[in-house]
């Protein structure tokens, strides 16, 4: 062992008490799915962790019916204070079982245990704690007095922060008085199943939360279900578009949190030590599987060389390996499919003329791994400057003036996050004004809090999660006397037209899909 080598420090898996098979969580019970079960593996070892049930359209139907029944008979009749008490219970149980959830998350997702233990799980519990307090304060949510819940919420979440995204979705939905059918990502269902057990311990009324597992088709069936009132999706922009198309013409309310290509802008007067750390964590946190990652570094030309040298030196110290090792900085790529995409885009980066560099690091034989990578000499037209890589890959571009930095930062169809590094507050605020992004971090990066709204501009989606705004996304204003009949008439007319519209939009969607695959 050499200086700066670390002995293995694995987190024990002894506190895990996993079942070999997990069913669908419908109406308060685990049930067999009608689809063919699939295995969930550890991306670090490719070994099977458990078998997960697969929900068919019929299962989706059962789950939505359970959620509807729970909404009509139980949840919508409870006082806000009682809904809040259930959410407080869930938050407390998650805090109590935090370590177990963290180990399961790292095992199933591949993220370092330090991240699941110190970020994902505590934040997920905080999300429930925060929204628990909102349940009896809906009048203050900003949509007027006596707001109403929407009904049944269909929620589909991604694999990068499985439990945290679940919390972002379920906590505000329940606080506002909705019931939920949630589908976790195919590769990361495990913590959602543990969460279902927590719901049983919390004695949450049956059917208020239903968790159905499966692949894309299950999610599609869920968001297209006619008895769903709200659709909330976090994932790729391509799928987001598909969902936006499919809910068009219905009265489903929609929130989309999609991809990003965040610009991290470093001015020459930036606090450089902090900036280097911020750039590193901005793009290598969670293997770069972060929709708001700072994957485009815009660095002022005068400090380019210094920044790149220091970034490379810092990247040399990143430890890639066993997600359950407490010394690991960068864990496993979540799936073979994602690894393939990262490799492909990186190869294109080289082909298009950018300069690729990675530190020497020994990657494990088994599992899916990708060394932290930096591309210099990137121009705005390169694929690695435009496409979301969703991996540990940083593209570096330069600028001379603030105006150029803003123009380059905004030169993207996305608009989720941005970072600004400068010692000058007035410059930070002026630049922030001009950036078209939903979350802007100044002299910091990747900060999340249940009290802070999160979401994107443009093709990064619409709607916000977190804070008062995140609550309002699950509420409808109270119907004012006299306005009901008018709304009903419009809806009826729309429903009558729907027969034709459905066919037209199906055709349109089909042709659009053809175009997209070309």
């Amino acid at each position, binding site marked *: 062992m050499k200086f700066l080598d670390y002995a293995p420090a694995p987190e024990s898996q002894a506190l895990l008490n996993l079942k070999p098979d997990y069913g669908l969580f419908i109406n308060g019970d685990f049930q067999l799915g009608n689809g063919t079960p699939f295995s969930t593996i550890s991306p670090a070892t490719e070994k099977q962790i458990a078998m997960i049930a697969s929900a068919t359209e019929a299962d989706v139907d059962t789950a939505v019916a359970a959620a509807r029944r729970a909404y009509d008979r139980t949840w919508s009749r409870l006082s806000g204070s009682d809904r809040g008490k259930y959410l407080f219970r869930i938050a407390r149980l998650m805090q109590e079982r935090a370590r177990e959830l963290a180990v399961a998350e790292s095992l199933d997702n591949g993220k370092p245990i330090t991240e699941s233990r110190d970020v994902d799980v505590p934040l997920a519990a905080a999300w429930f*704690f925060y929204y628990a307090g909102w349940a009896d304060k809906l009048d203050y949510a900003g949509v007027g007095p006596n707001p109403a819940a929407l009904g049944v919420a269909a929620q589909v979440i991604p694999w990068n922060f499985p439990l945290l995204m679940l919390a972002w979705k379920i906590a505000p939905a329940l606080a506002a008085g909705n019931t939920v059918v949630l589908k976790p990502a195919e590769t990361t269902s495990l913590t959602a199943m543990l969460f279902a057990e927590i719901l049983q311990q919390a004695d949450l009324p049956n059917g208020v939360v239903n968790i159905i597992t499966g692949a894309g088709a299950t999610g599609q069936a869920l968001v297209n279900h006619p008895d769903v009132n709200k659709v909330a999706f976090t994932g790729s922009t391509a799928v987001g578009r598909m969902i936006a198309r499919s809910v068009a013409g219905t009265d489903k309310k929609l929130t989309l949190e999609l991809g990003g290509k965040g610009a991290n802008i470093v001015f020459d007067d930036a606090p450089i030590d902090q900036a280097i750390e911020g750039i590193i964590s901005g793009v290598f946190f969670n293997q770069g599987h972060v929709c708001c990652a700072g994957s485009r570094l815009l660095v002022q030309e005068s400090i380019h060389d210094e920044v790149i040298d220091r970034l490379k030196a810092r990247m040399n110290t990143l430890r890639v390996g066993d997600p359950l090792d407490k010394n690991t900085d960068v864990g496993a790529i979540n799936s073979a499919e994602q690894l393939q995409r990262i490799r492909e885009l990186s190869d294109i980066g080289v082909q298009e003329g950018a300069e690729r560099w990675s530190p020497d690091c020994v990657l494990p034989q088994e599992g899916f791994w990708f060394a932290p990578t930096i591309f210099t000499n990137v121009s705005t037209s390169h694929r690695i400057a435009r496409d979301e890589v969703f991996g540990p890959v940083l593209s570096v571009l330069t600028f001379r003036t603030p105006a150029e930095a803003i123009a380059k930062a905004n030169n993207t169809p996305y608009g989720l996050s941005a970072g600004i590094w400068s010692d000058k*507050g007035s410059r930070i605020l002026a630049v922030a004004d001009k950036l078209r992004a939903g979350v802007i971090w100044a002299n910091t990066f990747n900060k999340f809090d249940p009290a802070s709204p999160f979401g994107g501009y443009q093709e990064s989606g619409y709607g916000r999660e977190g804070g008062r705004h995140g609550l309002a996304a699950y509420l409808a204003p109270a119907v004012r006397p006299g306005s009901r009949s008018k709304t009903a008439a419009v809806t009826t007319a729309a429903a009558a037209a729907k027969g034709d519209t459905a066919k037209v939009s199906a055709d349109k969607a089909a042709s659009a899909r053809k175009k997209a695959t070309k």
Partner: protein
Amino acid sequence: MTRLTVPKTYKLYIGGKFPRSESGRVYAVSSAAGDFLANAAQGSRKDARDAVVSARAALKGWSGATAYNRGQVLYRIAELLEGRRAQFVDEIMQAEGASAAGASAQVDDAIDAWVWYAGWADKYVQVAGNANPVSGPYFNLSVPEPTGVVAIVAPQTGGSLLGFVSAIAPALVAGNTVVVIAHETAPLTAISLGEVLATSDVPGGVVNILTGSPAEIAPWLASHGDVNALDLLGAGALDWVDLQIAAADTLKRVLPPEADAVPSLARILAFTETKTVWHTKSLL
């Protein structure tokens, strides 16, 4: 032979400790039926001044805790109160002559009030604060902050536990620390609540509880130079206008007496100061 019970000595709660009154005085507390229940400490001017010192010392930590942390600490009070509900039901029945159902309902309401207020800790800033659209290249943001040390006269009528909780909880939400004079004739539940606070995660000195005569103690708090606000919630039967006049010398924020302290956002905001921050935005 029946077992002889061991009665509790009720003292003050100041700075996280349970001292007797510096004055050495006690007064007899009776049940609704007129039977002797216990001796309560008869708090003095010196006790009140000690309590203010403790409250001031605790302010930095409590107001500096994150809003999320304060919310969790206040919620924990509800958890502990739930666990000791039998004791409080008992004390309320004895002190107030309430029925079991009535006492139980009062404890429920007190617990629920803690839960309701706990939830506000990390929300009231977003509801009451705002970005201001000023005409010029400025970032301009207004946020509420805690006022400081709040002296409170707890309700002197009605349910002694619920009244006490309704008086102190809103002031704690924003991060203020409090000195509170309990219900004079039914002070025992307040001191028992002090035991709950002492074993919860509420730092010592955040809540300081005085028993005794509000008429004697309140004027010293009203005129105290290190008290920032005065809640006269339960002072309706005192010469409260005199207290308000005394408070004017140090320009304390004053809330007038109220018959019934229904939980409200207004009670939280009464003990906050709005801070507005201007920051330039440069021309690019």
